[in-house]
C-alpha cells in the first residue's frame, strides 16, 4: 500500500494505547451488562475465555504480516486473489467499520443524553463527536496515537481509581456462585463473546505503519492482554456491587458504578472524573473507527491517500447512527453486530493464512 507522505510510523507505546482504546470503547457502553446477562456471576471469566479464542486469530495476523513484510491484509488479498477481490473486501470492511462506528456513536450519544445532557438534541451530540473524530482522524494515525498517548495516563489513573473506590464498597459474596450458569455454559459464552476484541483487526490494516515486526507483535499482544485485564476487572467490580439479577439490568454500568462511590462526607459525586475517562476513550476510539473505515476503503481501491474518503465516510457514519429508532434498538443491534462482525474480522485473516499455508509457497512476491 502506498502511504501518503503525511503518514509517519507508529511508536510502539502509542500504538498500544491507540489499539487498546479502540477495543475498550464498548466497555463504557452497555457491554458489561450484556456479559452479566450471558454469564451471571461468572461474567468476569468471559473476557479471559474470549481472549483465549482471539489469540490464534492474532497469530494468523502476525504470521501473515511477518511473511509479507507487514503489508496490509487487503494488499495481501489483492496479491493472492486479484484486485477485484481486494476491492470487494475493502468495500466490505469499510461498510462493516462504518456500521460499527456509527452504532458506537449512537449509543454514546444516547448515554450522554440519558446521563448528562437530557435536553440536548441527539443530532448535536452525534455531529459534535463526529466532527471531533473527523478532526482527530484527518491528521493521520501517527498524530492520533500521540494524542491518545498524552491522554492515556490521566484517563487510566482516573479509571483505575474509580474502579478501586467502587470495588472497595462491594461484597465478595456477590461474585458467588463462582461458575455462573455452569462450567460448560461459561466456556460457550466466552467463545460467543470473542467479538469483545474484534477491533484488534485494525492491526491488519495498519501493519505497514510499524517499524518492525517485533513492535507489531508486542503491540498486538499487549493490547489484548491489557484490555482483557480491564474487561475482567470491570466485571469483577460490577458484580461486587450488584448481585447478578441487578447487574444485568443496569442501564449504564460504568457510569452507575462511579455514581455509587460514596465514602461518606469526603469522597462522593466523583462521576465527572469517570465521564472524563469515558469521553477520552470514546473520542479516540471513534476517531480510530473512522480512520479504519477510510484506510480500508483506501487500501481496497488502491488509492494513494485516505483523506478524500474520510469526510464522506464520516457523513455516512452520522447517517447510519440515526438508523436505530431508539436507544434499546441501537443497543440490541450493536450486541448482535458484536457477534456477527468477528466472522469477517477474524475470518478474513484466518482464511488468508490458511490459503497462504496451502497454496502460496513463495514469499518473494512482495519484494
Amino acid at each position, binding site marked *: 500500500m502506498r502511504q501518503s507522505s503525511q503518514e509517519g510510523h507508529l511508536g510502539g507505546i502509542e500504538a498500544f494505547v491507540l489499539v487498546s482504546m479502540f477495543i475498550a470503547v464498548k466497555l463504557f457502553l452497555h457491554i458489561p451488562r450484556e456479559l452479566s446477562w450471558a454469564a*451471571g*456471576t461468572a461474567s468476569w471469566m468471559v473476557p479471559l475465555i474470549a481472549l483465549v479464542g482471539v489469540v490464534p486469530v492474532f497469530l494468523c495476523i502476525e504470521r501473515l504480516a511477518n511473511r509479507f513484510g507487514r503489508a496490509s491484509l487487503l494488499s495481501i488479498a489483492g496479491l493472492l486473489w486479484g484486485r477485484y477481490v481486494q476491492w470487494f473486501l475493502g468495500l466490505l470492511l469499510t461498510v462493516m467499520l462504518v456500521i460499527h462506528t456509527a452504532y458506537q456513536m449512537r449509543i454514546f450519544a444516547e448515554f450522554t443524553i*440519558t*446521563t*448528562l*445532557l*437530557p*435536553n*440536548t*438534541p441527539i443530532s*448535536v451530540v452525534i*455531529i*459534535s463527536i463526529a*466532527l*471531533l473524530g473527523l*478532526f482527530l482522524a484527518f491528521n493521520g494515525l501517527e498524530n492520533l496515537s500521540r494524542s491518545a498517548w498524552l491522554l492515556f495516563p490521566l484517563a487510566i489513573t482516573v479509571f483505575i481509581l474509580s474502579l478501586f473506590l467502587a470495588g472497595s464498597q462491594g*461484597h*465478595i*459474596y*456477590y461474585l*458467588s*456462585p*463462582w*461458575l*455462573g*450458569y*455452569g*462450567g460448560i455454559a461459561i466456556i460457550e459464552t466466552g467463545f460467543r463473546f470473542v467479538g469483545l476484541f474484534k477491533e484488534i483487526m485494525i492491526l491488519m490494516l495498519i501493519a505497514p505503519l510499524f517499524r518492525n515486526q517485533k513492535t507489531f507483535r508486542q503491540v498486538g499482544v499487549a493490547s489484548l492482554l491489557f484490555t482483557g485485564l480491564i474487561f475482567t476487572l470491570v466485571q469483577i467490580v460490577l458484580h461486587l*456491587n*450488584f*448481585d*447478578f*439479577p*441487578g447487574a444485568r439490568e443496569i442501564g449504564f454500568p460504568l457510569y*452507575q458504578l462511579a*455514581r*455509587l462511590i*460514596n465514602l*461518606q*462526607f469526603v469522597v*462522593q459525586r466523583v462521576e465527572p472524573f469517570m465521564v472524563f475517562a469515558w469521553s477520552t476513550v470514546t473520542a479516540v476510539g471513534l476517531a480510530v473507527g473512522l480512520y479504519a473505515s477510510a484506510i480500508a476503503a483506501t487500501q481496497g481501491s488502491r488509492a494513494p491517500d485516505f483523506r478524500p474518503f474520510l469526510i464522506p465516510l464520516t457523513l455516512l457514519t452520522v447517517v447510519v447512527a440515526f438508523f436505530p429508532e431508539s436507544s434499546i434498538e441501537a443497543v440490541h443491534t450493536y450486541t448482535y453486530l458484536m457477534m456477527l462482525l468477528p466472522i469477517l474480522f477474524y475470518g478474513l485473516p484466518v482464511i488468508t493464512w490458511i490459503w497462504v499455508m496451502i497454496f502460496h509457497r513463495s514469499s518473494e512476491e512482495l519484494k
Partner: protein
Amino acid sequence: MRTISLCLISLLLILVTSGCSSGRELERTAFVLTMGIDKGVNGNLDLIFRVAIPRSMDIRAGGETSTLQETTKIITVNARSISEGISLASTNVERKLDFRHLRTVLFGEELARDELLYHQLDALERNPEFRRTTYLLLTEGPAREVFLSTRPVLERSVARYIDGIMQNMREQGFGTPVTLHEFVTAMETYHLDPVLPMVKNNPMVQSEKVDSKVKPMPEVKYKRREAGKTEPGGKTTESLPRSGGNPSEFIGLGIFHQGKLIDKWSGWETNSYNLLRDTYQRSMWTFDDPSGHFVYSMELERARSPEANIDWEGGTPHIAIQLSLDGDLRSVQSLEPYVDSQGIALLENHAATLIEKEVRRLIAKAQEKKIDPFFLSRFVRMHMATIQDLEDLNWRDEFSRAQVDVHVSVKIRRPGLRIQPSKEYEYQRAP
C-alpha cells in the same frame, strides 16, 4: 483560507459542544432535599417535597434563620405516581424541581404495609436525577407527619442533618443506614429480605411543640408522662421517654418480605441485626452488672466479620455463628473493682452471654416468620458452583428449621482514663 476554515470549525464546535440546551441555571432551579411518599386516597400517592430556600441559608444575604422550617418549604401533592407528582408540583413552583441534591426518601408505613413501596422504586432508579446513594427511611405512621414535625436540634442544613443522623447510626447503633442501591440490591438478591431504618415521632416531644418550636415540659408533667415506662430505651419499639430535642427519632428497623412490611424491630434488635448482617461498626452496649445491681457500659466495635459454618448433616441444618467484638469500658455504675484480669474477663463473658442471648432471640424471631434479613445464605452461596444451585436452594425453609448456635467473643481492650472506680474510703452501699 486555512485560518478561516479553522475559525469556522472552532465557532461551530463552540456552538454545538457547549451543552447550553441542557443548561440548568442555579437561579432557575428548586432543589428538593428530602421527599416523602404516603399512600393517598383512591390508591394515589401523597408526595411531599422539601424544597430548599438557598437565600435564607446565606447569613451574608441577611438571613437570620435558625431552623429547618425557615430554610425549606414543604409542598404536598396527590398523584398517581412519583413522576406525575413531580410534574404536578411544578405547576405551583416558579423554578424547575431538581432532585440531584436529594438526601433521603421517606416512605409512609401504610404504603409499606400495603405492598406499594417496591412499586415506587422504579421511578427513583430510572430517573438520572435520583442517585442510588440516596438514603431511604420508613416512617411509623404517615411520612408527612414526620415532615411537618421534624425539628433538628442544631442543623438548618438538611444535607448535614441527614448525613449526621446516618453517621450516628453507624457509630451509635439502634439503626442502620440504607441507601436506595442497598435496598434495591437486597430486593434483587436471592434468599434475602430487605430492611429499612425507621423514623418515628415521639409523642412526648410532639406534645411539647408550641407553634414551630419545641418547649420542654415542666418537671411535674415530665415525671407523670415518664411513669409506667419500665423497659430501658431501645428495648421495645415504643418511643423513648424523652423531653425536648427533635420530635423525630431514628431508631429500629422495618422488615420486608415479598414486598410487604411484616415486622418492626426495636433498637436493641437492630444492633443484633447489624452484627449478623455485617453492617455493624460500633455501638454503646449497656448490661446489667454481674453483681445484680446497677449497669455497666461498653463501647464495642466489630473486631472481625461474622463467620458462619453451616452443616447440613442429618437433614437439619446446623448453623454456627461466630461474632467478634472488642472495645472500651465506658462506665461501671456499681463501682466494683472489675479492672483486673479476672474482673475484665468476668465483664467480657457476661457481656458476651447477654449479646448471645439477644442475637439468638432475634434469630428465633426471624425463623418463626420464615425470613432471613441477616443474609445468612451468603455463607451458603459462597460454597456454591452454579446459579442453578442457588435458585434451587430453599433457604428460608431450611433456615426456619435450622439449629443455630451463636458464639460471641467480647474483648475489652482499654478501660478508659480510669483504672478502678473512685470510691469514698469508708463507703459501704446498703445491701
